[in-house]
């Protein structure tokens, strides 16, 4: 009710206000380069959702949205250039889509008073809003992912991983190394043996790593990979006949791109997720009607329902909901970046809200606060069916082990605060 009243108030204000600028959403996309196959569907989903809002609802709160794309090629320097060239356009929120770019933009966005949303990537300890005032990583981060994988395996093993051997195959970069500390702590807590298996960029040749896994015979393999590393890892796992149902990738290792190349051999492979899969949600009907069929899709329109398209669409939906929250808080429809930050900090996603948006059970419910920019960290598991070429959600969105993750976030963010003389934000 409160939500409806707020929306009506904004709409009423809109009717009486002069012509307004657009709500600008920069999209730091990568449609070219070695990671283009992953960047394109995300960028399409992000753009299509805003196009749909414009066509169906006349924007958000009566203000039209505008997506400005800037090509980063998944390159940190280009990503920073994109930020610098678009921040003056009235940009409301940045989604850098790269952990490297995120690290560069954390101080810049804070200084420029523009919020940044790093959904499922970036600096994990940015979940501590007390230190990272302008960075948000809801609904889940890398450490939630690591814990989510272990929780899932605990469930598979009757609540105990004592004596089990778990290997982490990871991209040998800042991103890939993120879960190591969490998994080390979890191995102490649950008594499993933890083995690290790094893979150098780009990961086209992984024979050594998989021969090592064949020798070590881990019970489970968790993967934090990206791009070609994922496809090769899944093929190599199949080559050594590692059971696919014991192989779990993080959400950046769990799209159609990652499994299609291996064909039937990838059947049963699992991946973590923080959002729904497939196109069986009412919102996609609206996207088809108002965007694809109208010839206004950002891409070819053939990516709807794929994992990464859904993720881009979900990111756009969360940004749009934060705009609505900001409009309610500040009583203006044409919000600025500082107001957007407030909206993101007060964002609450409930199942009722998701259902109303045409996304019932698509993602977890969560609440953001000044202290908690990471949401509730709920993580689900999906599984690939090679015959039907579809992912299925095979678990609920379950909580991660905040007893382990919480202190790690505190420790890392405190170190960042000390290095950068940051005072409490809350």
């Amino acid at each position, binding site marked *: 009710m409160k939500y409806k009243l707020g929306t009506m108030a904004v709409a009423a204000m809109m009717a009486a206000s002069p012509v307004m600028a657009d709500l600008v959403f920069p999209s730091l996309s990568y449609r070219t380069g070695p990671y283009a196959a992953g960047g394109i569907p995300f960028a399409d989903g992000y753009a299509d959702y805003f196009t749909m809002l414009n066509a169906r609802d006349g924007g958000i709160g009566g203000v039209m949205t505008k997506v400005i794309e800037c090509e980063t090629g998944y390159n940190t320097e280009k990503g920073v250039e994109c930020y610098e060239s678009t921040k003056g356009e009235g940009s409301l929120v940045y989604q850098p889509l790269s952990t490297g770019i995120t690290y560069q933009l954390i101080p810049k966005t804070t200084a420029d008073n523009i919020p940044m949303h790093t959904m499922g990537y970036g600096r994990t300890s940015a979940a501590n809003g007390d230190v990272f005032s302008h960075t948000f990583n809801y609904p889940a981060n890398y450490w939630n992912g690591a814990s989510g994988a272990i929780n899932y395996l605990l469930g598979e093993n009757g609540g105990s991983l004592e004596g089990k051997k778990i290997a982490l195959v990871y991209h040998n970069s800042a991103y890939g190394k993120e879960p190591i500390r969490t998994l080390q702590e979890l191995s102490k807590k649950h008594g499993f043996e933890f083995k690290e*298996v790094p893979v150098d960029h780009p990961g086209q040749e992984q024979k050594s790593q998989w021969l090592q896994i064949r020798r070590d015979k881990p019970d489970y393999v968790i993967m934090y990979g990206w791009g070609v590393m994922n496809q090769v890892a899944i093929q190599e796992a199949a080559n050594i006949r590692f059971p696919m149902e014991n192989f779990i990738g993080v959400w950046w290792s769990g799209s159609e791109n990652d499994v299609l190349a291996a064909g039937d051999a990838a059947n049963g492979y699992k991946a973590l997720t923080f959002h729904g899969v497939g196109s069986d949600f009412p919102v996609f009907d609206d996207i088809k009607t108002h965007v694809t069929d109208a010839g206004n899709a950002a891409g070819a329109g053939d990516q709807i329902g794929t994992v990464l398209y859904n993720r881009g669409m979900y990111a756009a939906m969360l940004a749009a909901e934060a705009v609505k929250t900001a409009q309610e808080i500040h009583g203006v429809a044409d919000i600025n970046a500082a107001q957007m930050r407030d909206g993101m900090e007060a964002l609450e996603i409930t199942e009722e809200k998701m259902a109303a948006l045409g996304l019932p059970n698509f993602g977890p419910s969560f609440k953001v606060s000044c202290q908690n920019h990471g949401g509730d960290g709920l993580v689900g598991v999906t599984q690939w069916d090679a015959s039907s070429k579809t992912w299925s959600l095979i678990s609920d969105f379950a909580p991660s082990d905040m007893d382990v993750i919480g202190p790690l976030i505190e420790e890392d963010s405190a170190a960042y605060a000390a290095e950068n003389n940051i005072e409490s934000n809350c």
Partner: protein
Amino acid sequence: MNEQLAYTIEVFANGLMAGVLYALVALGFVLIYKASGIFNYAQGVMALFAAMTLVGIQNGQVPFAHLINAIFGTDVHKFGWHVHSFLAIALTVLVMIALAWMVQRFVFRHLVGQEPIILFMATIGLAYFLEGVADLMWGSELKALNVCASEGACLPQGMNVWLEGTTYEALGYGFFIDNLDIVASIVAVILVAGLVIFAQYTKQGRAMRAVADDHQAALSVGVSLNFIWVLVWSLAGFVALVAGIMWGAKSGVQFSLSLIALKALPVLMLGGFTSIPGAIVGGLIIGVGEKLFEFLIGAPFLGGATENWFAYMLALLFLVFRPQGLFGEKIIERV
């Protein structure tokens, strides 16, 4: 059999197989450098372009579909047919020959006599241009690559079960070798043998060698430099197609395929830029060296992921003692 010894032999064998795959990429560089003195930065992108073209033709994809649709408001994406792998390979070879002709006609013909660094820069430009054309022509999405002689008889993937079983029975440890690597090795042997026979026993091959030895002398006896360069770029295109198939079968065809060139550089430094056998031997040394180092030292003592830098370190070590590489020609320039 002692477990550690068995593992070491397994790593060694897989290193040899990986080395063959590196050599396949390096061969393309050698062919062009040998004949024209150009270090072809675009060789990796040529492998990508060739593999994308092959998959596109196989799947009956309309080239430049997005562009056509955007300009004419149409909605065409596929022809609706599936082309047999062998025919698709033949058509892709024709495309690579056409590409070779265009590269020669529109780029290098205008740069005859320029400094090597200018020619190198031109290949950098060519790489970016070709990557863009590949994107426009076939799209950026990942494509699965299946080369099949008939239905069910495709490029094999996965562990060679016979070898595993036999070695297990004989030695108490079943060795792992990837079927695709075995095929790649056989293909590489045939390819190198074919190239050597072509260079030694055909008129065009001898002309190619003459140009490689001395451009001016070859010109003076009536060898067409333009023809030879088109021929060499065509051969490099064919080698790129073979490399693209072998690497693309593993990972799917996607833009990161062009990065396989990074694997060829240490091979070239070690084997020499002008020797076909050098590319093979260099590939094998790099493959075995990096795998054994990772197994014996990298993973146990250095945290792993040492292969990339070790390959370059090994190549640099060779450079210190033999700058021209193992099989490269020693260049003596008088001032």
